[in-house]
């Protein structure tokens, strides 16, 4: 079972209240991008064993999209943060580094 704290309403939301949105912080390639970059944007994902930055939506609650950092192997949650950013906040990265002994996603 996975519990993620929605940064908008503060609820510790059960996984069944959430809709997964896949890998976070993708660069959205447009019509002027190269074929390779567009293919990577549409199809290629990191799928790491370990720290992963993801998008989730509080679908059954406040309805907002947010971000979460989670270990895909252990389901350890390092934190959640709002959708209004294009990279994880530094304090979260520091916490992850502390928790994982320096492992980076």
């Amino acid at each position, binding site marked *: 079972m996975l519990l993620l704290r929605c940064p908008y309403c503060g*609820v510790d939301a059960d996984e069944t209240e959430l809709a997964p949105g896949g890998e976070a912080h993708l660069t959205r390639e447009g019509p002027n991008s190269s074929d390779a970059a567009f293919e990577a944007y549409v199809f290629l994902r990191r799928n790491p064993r370990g720290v992963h930055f993801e998008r989730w939506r509080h679908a059954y609650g*406040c309805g907002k999209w947010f971000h979460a950092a989670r270990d895909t192997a252990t389901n350890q949650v390092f934190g959640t943060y709002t959708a209004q950013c294009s990279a994880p906040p530094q304090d979260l990265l520091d916490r992850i580094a502390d928790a994982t002994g320096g492992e980076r996603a």
Partner: protein
Amino acid sequence: MSEFLSRPYEGFARVEQSAPRAMVSLRGDLGSQAMAAAVSEVSGCAIPEPLRLTQAAQDDDRGGGQTSGQSGAQHGGQYGAACLWMSPDELLLLGPAGTGPELAARLTEALAGQHHLAVDVSEARALFRVSGPAAREVMMKITPADVARMGPGDARRTRLAQIAGALWMEREAAIEVACFRSVGAYVAELLTTAARSGGEVGLLHPAAT
């Protein structure tokens, strides 16, 4: 209004379909002065904090005169206007049945010039009430929301078994439940099944022996 429960169901808690109320969805900047003024003017409610609701102050003068304790008596008493926090930019205003179009129009007028949306959605949802000392235990079976810690003034959108719904408490020992009307029959069966005698959980409220 559609009827999903013709009469109250008495299990280890009571389940009934609530009387219709006006429901108006209001979206906009909940932190703005204009929003606070409009909601106060139209409903008498303050803007609720996240996961909370506010109720209009009630005149306890009208018939019955139960003025023991807080406004809104334990059992009797009318359900007055209320304002539910639904998301960071959305409220649900509850008012007397039939007043939805008027409430929405007054909000639209009060918020003229402000980015907002006020829509009468009175017919969109069905309302139920689960009451009695073990009411929370009925809800614990069907939602991941932390119902055990909910009390009067709390509001929560969540999942009810297979569908989306909302829970809130305007008074102690009664949980209000809202769902889309299209799944009203499902929720009526869900609540009455969860409240069936013999299905007591006994976690918060000692099971009858």
